[in-house]
């Protein structure tokens, strides 16, 4: 599976896939698996933003997307080749993402509370006074 993902992503063959050896088996966890996980998490989050009615859930979906980003950053930093491992940008970035996500969540919840006070609903599809 690792090879398959590597092929799809067209990653360099010499990327270490964990466990040693480029022809790792199905359960040898490497970069490709992390990227796949991150992509799936990101898609799930995006899907949640599009289809969940409850604003709180939408907010959580957004957080999911940001965490997908974190997974990707850490994985690239840990498993990347050459230049990736020489610096720790990916890990630092992940910290900042967490901080910003926390700030966003705080503000978001405040906004949601205000909307709930006025409209007594947190369903996004009922919030459409502004249109056309």
């Amino acid at each position, binding site marked *: 599976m690792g090879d398959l993902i590597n092929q799809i992503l067209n990653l360099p063959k010499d990327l270490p896939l964990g466990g040693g050896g480029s022809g790792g088996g199905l359960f040898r966890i490497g970069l490709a698996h992390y990227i796949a996980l991150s992509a799936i998490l990101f898609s799930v989050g995006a899907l949640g933003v599009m289809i969940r009615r409850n604003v709180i859930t939408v907010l959580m979906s957004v957080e999911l997307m*940001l965490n997908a980003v974190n997974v990707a950053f850490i994985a690239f930093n840990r498993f990347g080749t050459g230049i990736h491992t020489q610096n720790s940008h990916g890990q630092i*970035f992940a910290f900042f993402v967490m901080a910003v996500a926390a*700030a966003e969540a705080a*503000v978001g919840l405040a906004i949601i509370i205000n909307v709930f006070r006025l409209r007594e609903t947190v369903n996004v599809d009922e919030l459409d006074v*502004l249109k056309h």
Partner: protein
Amino acid sequence: MPGMFSELAKLDNWSQWSIAPMAIVFAGAVATTLIAGFVKDSTRRSFIGQISIFCLAIAAAVNYVQWTGGWQDPGRLVWAGSMTLDYLTMLMNFVFIGCAILAILISLNTISELGIEYGEFYPLILFATGGMMCMVQATDLLMIFIGLEVMSIPLYIMCGMRRSQDRSAESSLKYFILGALAAGFLLYGVALTYGATGVTSLHGIQRWTMENGGLAANPLLTAGLALILAGFAFKIALAPFHMWTPDVYEGAPTFVTAFMSAAVKAAGFVTLFRILVTGFFQNGYTASLVGWGEIIAILAVLTMTIGNFSALVTKNVKRMLAWSSVAHAGYAAVGLAAAPAAGADGVGGVLFYVIGYALTSFVSFGVVAAFEKQNGGLSQVEDYRGLGYSQPFYAFAMTVAMFALAGIPPTVGFLGKWYVFKAAVEANITWLAVIGVLNSLVSVYYYLRVVVAMYLESPEEQAEQEPIKSSALWLAVLISTVLTIGVGLFPKKPLGAVEKSVSPMFVKK
């Protein structure tokens, strides 16, 4: 504590001096937050606005010192290569500070009319301004992201500051949800770019793309660029990432709308072209390493067309201006689309366009703000009938704004359009210029409708057309009106500044 100071002292002096204006703005933001907390009587907090203006003025003065030679080495990288101080940054600092001052002037008296707390708005707008300054100063995707968020999060709150108003709250929520989604796009794009290149600094990305033959070789980088483009297309409201714009602009308090449509848009455009030109463009190639020019061209066409045609059928003046703001993002994007082939002319066009548009939007939204009341006020085009005779000053300002937005000389709007369309013709994408010119033809119709209503129609009955009594608001509209005409007539200095700012980006290194 002493240890920390000694650490600071060891830092490159250049680095500290380079962010002085931004630091002053942030210091002002913190100070106003504290002051607001110590003044018990909330109705007496209006002086916080004056303090904010004072902070911004100091920042502008420092920025002026840097511009006129206080900064010896424009373009030098500081803070370990994550920031720079070039003329582009300094010019944009002026723009952001100016926008913030104008927005505060408009707000000083209208804010209580709309039932908004003084103690909340001023720190927030200072934080947002500082965030923008950070964003355009950054040359590393990490810093850009931080700047973007420091700008955006206060804006989410500012949109919803009319807390008792349905529309304001809804506008805030919509902006927040979609803004967070767009931030997710941007971050994922940065992550993929990092994965492909191993770096987050723009110069590092450029080096990598040059050495590895551009995007073609790497799907990760392709996806990363697409995601970054989408993230910024949201901020500057390019179709199809524009749909939040009319709703949010309409619901937000008008001075916030003015600030967003002027400063946020300018910050977004400047950062976007810094990323594209520094990171994904190589001097010496006839075109960019990756075909972002064509993509921006398509987005520009969509944006102009959707913005103009929607504005055509919109009767609410504020919403119409919001749609027009979408359309203007499209015009500015024409210059960006021309940048790969026209170089500094294209990007200079974008820069001049967004600055000119910032001025104009303070005129138009300033007039709207003057007639916006807690209950009622003027909102539809019909409400403006006969304003030319009952309120000659505001009507004249609005007329200037409408002509500038329609691109009629000698206003700044004409010159802006001139630049971006000329750049498109130079870049051999004449079709884009033709679509742009045709679009501006359509736009004349709805801008004209406002002027016609003000001067050539009489109100049905004697309508109440009293503006909010505010000399600050009056002053803000006056300043931006004078500048809209003045820069149109004497654009030499601003244009020189714009050229000075963008030309180093295209110098072969």
